[in-house]
């Protein structure tokens, strides 16, 4: 009997819960109230109250201040509050007023009206990043084209009056319209589905973790590529105004490609997509924005500099560098002296560019890839101002995914670049050597470093070298890994 009562009570609790799980998710996703998004029981109750409040307020028209109308402002406050709650719930309108139904504007150039129409339609759809609805695909197309062609948002911060004079005018409208016409919503939907089915398995580790899915989507998914193009455009305008600032990494926000566990399962269940061609070049066209050159450094072509790389670099990491605008940091090993004058101080930050030379299709999960590294910029002094520093390219063979036996280009690896050089120097596989040396190093030799006094930084560098050597020895001595290798690595830290 007691069990029956308990079950009845539980049933009662369930009845009190929101009537549909889908509606519950919807309300949480749309709620403007942050993390404590309310679980709302029955919007019908709210609708009834709204209808009643509307009736009461209608009686107050014409200056009636008797009865409930004495508290007219409070009634209005209640109504406003309940309308906002109902809106958060996803109910486009509520009792007493039928939903205002927008119709799709016949003029395809009226993209703002179409956005308003789509906004209303989307409130009644369940959101999915995997299986886009036609409305959502169209909404993203218009938003992306507006972002790429209407630069109003950049006017104040980055443009002169002359540069901004045509923005928002007929040409902007024509450009947006033309851009929107380039994309078909159905094609975008199909592309998104295929890109997800290709990128999700390709970037999921055996343990279920996911790495660099954005990167894969940037290359294969139209909407993500457009998003990245917009971010690159904004960043380019920023450097157009402030050319000496560091280039910031541009990654399309995760919420554009986030998928639910249910969608992940659906993708797993779909027929596997093993290969997928990259998007056409137009999706990767750099922004048409002039970025003034940085101040030149008085370094003659052919000068060799030696740097120590920071961080460890495998194929995945270089992929991210090449596509997401991340940076490879290194430090100058010795001061660079030209004609008796120190042009760059020791430990100046030298920023490298990296790229995958091949194979590039990560869907095939290559064991190793060839990467190319060149110098790109250098930090001058402590101001953070950067100057260009272009060099030849050093080529390494590294694992696509690093592991204990094959860590790729490891921290503190020394590299010698030839400034102004355009050739490449092929390095041996980066599996073993702690300090891979280029097969051929162009002359002239680097300027002789001046004697430097002992400093804490020197000591730190030597210590880093000792630890590095110890780590490499541990990896070499115990290639099978296991406890012995772990103990040996732990000993290095001491």
């Amino acid at each position: 009997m007691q069990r029956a009562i308990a079950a009845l009570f539980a049933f009662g609790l369930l009845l009190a819960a929101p009537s549909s799980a889908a509606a519950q998710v919807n309300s949480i996703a749309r709620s403007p109230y942050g993390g404590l998004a309310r679980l709302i029981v029955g919007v019908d109750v709210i609708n009834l109250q709204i209808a009643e409040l509307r009736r009461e307020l209608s009686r107050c028209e014409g200056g009636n201040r008797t009865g409930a109308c004495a508290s007219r402002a409070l009634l209005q406050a209640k109504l406003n509050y309940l309308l906002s709650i109902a809106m958060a719930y996803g109910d486009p309108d509520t009792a007493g007023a039928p939903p205002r139904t927008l119709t799709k504007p016949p003029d395809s150039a009226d993209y703002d009206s179409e956005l308003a129409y789509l906004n209303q339609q989307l409130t009644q759809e369940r959101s999915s990043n995997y299986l886009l609805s036609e409305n959502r695909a169209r909404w993203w197309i218009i938003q992306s084209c507006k972002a790429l062609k209407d630069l109003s948002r950049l006017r104040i911060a980055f443009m002169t009056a002359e540069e901004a004079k045509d923005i928002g005018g007929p040409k902007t409208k024509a450009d947006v319209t033309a851009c929107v016409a380039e994309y078909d919503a159905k094609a975008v939907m199909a592309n998104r589905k295929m890109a997800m089915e290709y990128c999700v398995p390709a970037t999921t580790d055996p343990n279920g973790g996911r790495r660099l899915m954005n990167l894969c989507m940037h290359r294969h998914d139209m909407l993500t590529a457009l998003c990245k193009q917009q971010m690159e455009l904004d960043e380019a305008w920023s450097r157009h105004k402030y050319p000496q600032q560091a280039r910031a990494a541009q990654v399309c926000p995760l919420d554009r490609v986030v998928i639910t566990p249910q969608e992940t399962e659906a993708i797993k269940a779909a027929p596997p997509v093993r290969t997928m061609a990259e998007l056409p070049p137009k999706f990767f066209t750099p922004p048409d924005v002039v970025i003034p050159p940085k101040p030149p450094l008085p370094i003659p072509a052919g000068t060799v500099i030696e740097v120590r790389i920071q961080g460890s670099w495998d194929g995945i990491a270089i992929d991210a560098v090449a596509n997401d605008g991340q940076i490879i940091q290194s430090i100058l090993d010795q001061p660079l002296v030209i004609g008796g004058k120190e042009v760059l101080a020791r430990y100046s930050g030298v920023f490298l560019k990296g790229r995958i030379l091949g194979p590039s299709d990560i869907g095939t999960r290559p064991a190793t890839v060839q990467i190319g590294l060149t110098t790109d910029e250098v930090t001058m002094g402590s101001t953070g101002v950067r100057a260009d520093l272009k060099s030849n390219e050093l080529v390494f063979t590294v694992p696509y995914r690093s592991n204990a036996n094959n860590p790729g280009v490891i921290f503190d690896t020394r590299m010698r670049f030839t400034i102004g050089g355009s050739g490449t120097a092929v390095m041996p596989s980066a599996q073993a050597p702690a300090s891979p040396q280029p097969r051929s190093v162009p002359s002239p030799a680097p300027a002789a470093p001046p004697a430097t006094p002992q400093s804490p930084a020197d000591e730190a560098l030597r210590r880093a070298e000792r630890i590095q050597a110890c780590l490499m020895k541990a990896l070499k001595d115990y290639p099978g890994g296991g406890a012995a290798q772990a103990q040996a690595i732990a000993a290095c830290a001491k």
Partner: protein
Amino acid sequence: MTIRLFGLAVAIACVTASPALAQNDALRGKMAMSVYVSIYGDREIDATTFRLALEQQLHDMGITVLPHADPPNFPVLNLSINVDQGTQRTTTVWGDGRVTTTDLPLSAYASRLELRQLAPGRTAAMRPIEDVTVWSRTAEPQTISSSVAWRIPIDAMDLASQFVTAWQAVNGSTHAPTADKPMPLPNPNAPAPASSEGGQSLYADGSCPTRAGGGCVAAISRAVTDSVESVPYAQTDMVLKQITDLQQRGQKVISCIYGPSNTQAKTGYVTFHFWYQSAPADILKLLTSAFPHPFMNLGRVAVSACPATKALANVVSASRFN
């Protein structure tokens, strides 16, 4: 018998009602007060919105609404809502021996509306002045499922309706509405509060068509308000019309840009928008016509020039409803 019972009932009713009636009498002649709304334990309820609604209600009743900075001897109408979140766990033993637990989120809340005023203290030596409650109503504390927690502000507004009834019972309901007084213009050159943040000075935007007062002055538009998209659909047209009407009335907004906060990278600009020269005369009516209203970022304050620093702009913006 029936008459006797009726008489007893009337007597009981009088005994029950008399303290409330006596308390209502304390509202007699209270023709000016300021309004405070305090919410504890629930960040979802916007105190400012309900405070503005209360102020509009007082104006409608013919009560002068005083700014927060007025001398403290004037009455203060204070609405406080206390919310506690909790969980009720229920364990169920099913017929087949399975045991399941269900957690039901609960909200416990209590609301109180009171009119407070400074009065001479009972012990002149120790407490010459006392802050006393001259009128109050308390909603009975309730514990409800969080799924119906949207009711909490509605119940608080019911308390306010009780205040309206009580006040009009002793003061009448024929007073002419009072006008919402515009906030005084803040001094743009007031000393800035201490701040450790660098790069706070005004930034001149090269693309501004009309520069004045250190900022960019333009007609009110959706570009300088909060998003209209957040307004409930039923009220969107009304809000858009309000913006258009203000444009036609020549209402101006000044945009003040401060930065860069990162002086090395030249990044980190912050833009503030303020009503220029004067806020719309009916700003309180506008702000209380929809929730959330897109003018909430502008508030009720107007400036004649951009505050000199970002820190000062922050101060002006933070006090835009006071």
